[in-house]
C-alpha cells in the first residue's frame, strides 16, 4: 500500500521509490490491545521523546527498525540525495511523526514539526504544497523527506522549490527539538528527561493533544529551554518521567498512527498558542514532580526501558518500571513488605497532578483489599495506573489482568510476604487483614460483620475449592510456597466462611463486627459459639475449632497480615521451607507450622489490634506448647534466605514433601468435611427457627392489615 502510494506520488511525477520493507512498517505498527480512544491519545506519546529516543536508538544501538528506516530513507533519499546525516535525522523525524499502516504520517505531528522549524506559516504551506502532501492530503515518507529538505532550504534562505532540494543544504533546524548534533551526542538522560518532562502532562482535551504537545514543547523550548533542563538534570533526573518516557516510546512504535487525517490545514497556530499556555503550566508542574522522586535508576531505566520493552501491553508492568516503583515505595516506606498509609500515598500521588476524582478512582482500583493502605503490589498498581493515565490512557473500570496483584507476584521474586498477601487478597477481598492502622479499627470493626455475608462466603468457597487440588500437582518448589498458603488459606477460608454462618443467632452476631480481621473474630466466635450454641455437637467439634482455626487463622493472619514486621511473614515462609527441608512427610509439621505461625502472628496481632485479640488469646493457650517447639526452628530459618532453601534439598525430600502435602490436604479435607457436617446441622436448626419467625411475621402482618383500614379511614 505504501509502495503504491509512493509510486503515485511526487509533484514532478518522479518516482520516489519507497523501498521501506514492510517489516519495518509492521514493527512500528504493532497494535497493543489498548483501550478504545487510542487515536485521540496517540499524541500523548511525546513527540520529542520519541524523536530523541528513536534517534538515540538508531545511533547508539542501531536496532532493526531504525536500520530499516534508514534504508528506506536511503532509498527515498536517492532521489533527493540525502546524505548520511540527513538520512538519519530524517528517519528519526519520520518515526517521530508516527506513520501509520499506510505510511502516512500523522499530520498533527508533522504540523508541529513544521511549526518547530520556525518558518512563517505561508512558507510552511508552500513546503507542503511543493512536496506534494497537499495534493495527496497526507504526508507519506517521500513527501516528508522532501518537506524536510524544503524546510532546510527555507531556513537557509533558499526559495521553496523542488530544485532546492537538490542543493546541499544543512539539516533543517527545529526549535524545540534539539539540534541534530546535540541530539546525537548529548547525554540521554537530560534530553529524555526534559522531553519527558514535557511529555509528562496528559492534557485532557483529546483533540488538541497534538497541538498541545507540539505547542508546549515548542514554547518550552523557546522560553524555558535551559530552565527545563536544569531541573531534569537534578539527581533523580525525573525518574517519574522516565517510566513515562520509555513507555511512551514503545507506544509510539506500536501505535497505529492514530490521528490519521487531522486535516493538514489544521495548523491552527492560534489554538496551539492557546493550549500551549495551560499545557505549559502543566508541564511546569510536572517538572516539579521529579523533585519528589528519588534514587535514580532513571538513566538506566531510560536506556534499558527503551531497548527492553518488548511487551505491547500497556497495562503490564515491566522490569524497569517495577524497579522504579520499588524505589519509590522504599522512599515512602523502607520496608517492602509493609504498607503505605493512605494519607502518605495520597500526598505522593497528588504530586502527580492528576485530578482528585481520577486519583480516587485509581485508588479504588488498586486498593483491592480495601484497607485504606497500599501494599507494595497495590502501590505498583496505583503507580502504574497513574503513569498510564498521564500518558493518556483512560482509566479502566476494573483492574486489567496484568495489573492484578496475583499476576505481579508471579512475576516478581519478592520475598514471600507480598505474595502471600496478594494471594490472599485475590481470594478474599473481603476478609482483608488486620492492619496496623489503628485509626481504621473502628471502621473495620463496623464493616467486619457485614463483610461476612453468605454471598461472599459462597464466592470464596467456590474460589477456594478449585484451588485446593492444585498444590499436589505443583512441583515447583517456589510455587509450592505460593500455593500452599493458598491451599491452606482456601481451606481456612472455607472454614472461616462456614464458621461465619455458624453463629447467625443474634447474640453472637454483633460480635462479628470485626472487620477484615474476621479470621480472628471467627476464631473467637467459634470458641464462644461452640460451647454455647452448639450444645448438641459431637465431641470432635470442640477439638475441631482449635485446629481449623489455627489452620485458617495463621494463614489468614500471618499470611495476609500486612504488618510492618517482616518477620511475621518470614516465619511463614521459613516454616514452609523448614517443612520442606526437614523432609517431614507427615502432616503434623504443617499443622504445627501453622500453629506456630498462628502463635507468632497472634502475638504480633495482640500488639496491634484491640478486641480482636480476645478471641485469639483463647486459642493461643492450646497452641503454646506447639508453638514453642517450633519457635527456635522458625527462628533459625529466618536467617536462611528463602530462595535458597527450595533448591537446596535434593529430590528425595521433594517426594516426601509431596506425600506430606497430600496428607496435609487429606487432613484438611477431613476437617472440612467435619465442619461441613457441623454447619449442615446448624443450618437445619436455623431453618426451623426461620420458619417459626416467618409464621410469626405472617400473623403480625395479618393483624396489621386488619388494623390498617381502621387507621386509614
Amino acid at each position: 500500500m505504501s509502495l503504491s502510494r509512493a509510486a503515485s506520488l511526487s509533484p514532478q511525477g518522479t518516482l520516489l521509490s519507497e523501498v521501506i520493507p514492510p517489516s519495518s512498517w509492521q514493527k512500528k505498527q504493532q497494535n497493543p490491545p489498548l483501550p478504545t480512544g487510542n487515536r485521540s491519545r496517540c499524541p500523548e506519546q511525546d513527540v520529542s521523546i520519541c524523536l530523541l529516543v528513536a534517534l538515540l536508538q538508531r545511533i547508539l544501538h542501531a536496532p532493526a527498525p531504525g536500520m530499516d528506516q534508514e534504508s528506506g530513507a536511503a532509498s527515498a533519499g536517492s532521489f533527493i540525495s540525502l546524505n548520511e546525516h540527513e538520512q538519519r535525522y530524517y528517519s528519526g523525524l519520520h518515526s517521530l511523526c508516527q506513520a501509520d499502516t499506510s505510511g502516512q504520517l500523522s499530520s498533527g505531528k508533522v504540523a508541529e514539526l513544521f511549526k518547530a522549524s520556525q518558518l512563517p506559516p505561508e512558507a510552511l504551506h508552500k513546503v507542503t504544497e511543493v512536496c506534494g502532501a497537499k495534493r495527496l492530503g497526507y504526508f507519506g515518507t517521500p513527501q516528508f523527506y522532501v518537506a524536510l529538505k524544503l524546510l532546510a532550504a527555507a531556513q537557509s534562505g533558499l526559495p521553496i522549490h523542488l530544485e532546492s532540494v537538490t542543493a546541499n543544504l544543512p539539516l533543517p533546524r527545529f526549535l524545540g527539538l534539539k539540534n541534530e548534533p546535540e541530539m546525537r551526542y548529548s547525554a540521554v538522560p537530560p534530553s529524555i528527561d526534559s522531553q519527558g518532562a514535557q511529555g509528562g502532562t496528559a492534557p485532557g482535551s483529546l483533540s488538541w493533544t497534538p497541538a498541545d504537545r507540539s505547542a508546549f514543547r515548542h514554547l518550552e523550548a523557546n522560553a524555558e529551554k535551559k530552565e527545563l533542563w536544569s531541573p531534569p538534570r537534578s539527581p533523580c533526573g525525573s525518574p517519574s518521567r522516565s517510566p513515562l518516557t520509555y513507555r511512551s516510546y514503545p507506544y509510539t512504535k506500536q501505535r497505529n498512527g492514530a490521528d490519521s487525517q487531522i486535516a493538514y490545514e489544521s495548523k491552527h497556530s492560534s489554538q496551539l498558542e492557546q493550549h500551549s499556555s495551560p499545557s505549559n503550566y502543566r508541564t511546569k508542574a510536572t517538572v516539579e514532580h521529579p523533585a519528589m522522586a528519588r534514587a535514580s535508576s532513571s538513566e538506566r531505566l531510560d536506556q534499558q526501558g527503551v531497548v527492553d520493552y518488548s511487551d505491547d501491553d500497556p497495562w503490564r508492568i515491566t522490569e524497569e518500571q517495577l524497579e522504579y516503583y520499588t524505589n519509590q515505595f522504599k522512599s515512602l516506606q523502607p520496608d517492602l513488605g509493609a504498607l503505605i498509609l493512605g494519607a502518605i500515598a495520597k500526598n505522593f500521588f497528588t504530586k502527580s497532578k492528576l485530578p482528585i476524582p481520577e486519583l480516587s478512582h485509581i485508588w479504588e482500583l488498586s486498593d483491592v483489599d480495601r484497607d485504606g493502605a497500599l501494599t507494595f503490589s497495590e502501590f505498583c498498581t496505583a503507580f502504574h495506573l497513574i503513569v498510564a493515565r498521564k500518558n493518556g490512557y483512560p482509566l479502566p473500570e476494573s483492574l486489567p489482568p496484568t495489573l492484578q496483584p496475583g499476576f505481579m507476584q508471579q512475576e516478581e521474586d519478592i520475598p514471600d510476604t507480598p505474595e502471600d498477601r496478594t494471594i490472599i487478597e485475590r481470594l478474599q477481598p473481603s476478609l482483608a487483614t488486620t492492619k496496623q492502622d489503628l485509626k481504621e479499627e473502628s471502621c473495620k470493626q463496623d464493616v467486619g460483620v457485614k463483610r461476612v455475608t453468605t454471598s461472599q462466603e459462597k464466592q470464596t468457597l467456590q474460589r477456594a475449592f478449585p484451588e485446593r487440588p492444585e498444590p499436589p500437582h505443583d512441583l515447583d518448589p517456589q510455587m509450592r510456597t505460593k500455593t500452599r498458603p493458598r491451599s491452606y488459606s482456601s481451606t481456612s477460608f472455607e472454614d472461616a466462611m462456614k464458621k461465619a454462618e455458624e453463629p447467625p443467632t443474634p447474640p453472637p452476631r454483633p460480635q462479628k463486627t470485626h472487620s477484615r480481621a474476621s479470621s480472628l473474630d471467627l476464631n473467637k466466635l467459634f470458641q464462644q459459639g461452640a460451647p454455647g450454641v452448639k450444645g448438641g455437637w459431637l465431641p470432635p467439634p470442640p477439638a475441631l475449632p482449635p485446629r481449623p482455626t489455627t489452620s485458617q487463622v495463621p494463614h489468614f493472619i500471618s499470611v495476609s497480615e500486612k504488618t510492618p514486621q517482616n518477620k511475621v511473614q518470614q516465619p511463614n515462609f521459613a516454616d514452609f521451607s523448614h517443612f520442606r527441608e526437614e523432609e517431614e512427610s507427615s502432616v503434623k509439621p504443617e499443622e504445627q507450622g501453622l500453629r506456630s505461625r498462628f502463635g507468632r502472628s497472634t502475638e504480633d496481632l495482640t500488639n496491634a489490634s484491640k478486641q480482636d485479640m480476645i478471641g485469639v488469646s483463647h486459642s493461643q493457650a492450646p497452641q503454646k506448647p506447639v508453638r514453642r517447639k517450633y519457635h527456635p526452628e522458625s527462628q533459625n530459618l529466618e536467617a536462611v534466605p528463602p530462595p535458597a532453601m527450595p533448591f537446596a534439598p535434593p529430590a528425595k525430600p521433594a517426594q516426601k514433601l509431596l506425600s506430606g502435602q497430600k496428607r496435609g490436604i487429606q487432613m484438611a479435607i477431613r476437617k472440612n468435611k467435619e465442619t461441613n457436617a457441623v454447619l449442615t446441622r446448624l443450618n437445619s436448626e436455623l431453618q426451623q427457627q426461620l420458619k417459626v419467625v416467618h409464621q410469626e411475621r405472617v400473623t403480625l402482618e395479618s393483624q396489621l392489615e386488619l388494623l390498617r383500614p381502621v387507621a386509614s379511614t
Partner: protein
Amino acid sequence: MSAFLHTSLDVVEEKISAVGKSLGDQRELYLGLLYPTEDYKVYGYVTNSKVKFVIVVDSSNTSLRDNEIRSMFRKLHNSFTDVMCNPFHNPGDPIQSKAFDGIVSGMMVQTG
C-alpha cells in the same frame, strides 16, 4: 418528599440521643413511619461513626423482609466504608465512587 426525609432524620436523631446504651442499635428498623397517604416505609440505620443511612421503600412492595433490609444496609455500609477508606475522598463530599454507585443501583434493581 424531602419533608419526609427530614422528618425521618429527626426521628432517627431522637432515637440516637435517647439511647443510653452503646451508640445505638445498628439495625434500627423504622417501620413506624408510615404515612397513611404516602404509603412508604423509611428504614434508618446508624453506624458507629454516626453516619446515617436511610432507605425509603414503597409500601406496595410488601415482599421486602426485614432481613433483606438488613442485608441492604449491610451492603451499603460496606461500600460506604470502602469509599471512606479512599484517602482522596473527603468526608462530606458527595460520593463519586463508581463502585459505590454500582452497588447501590444493583441493590435497588434487586429489590425492584
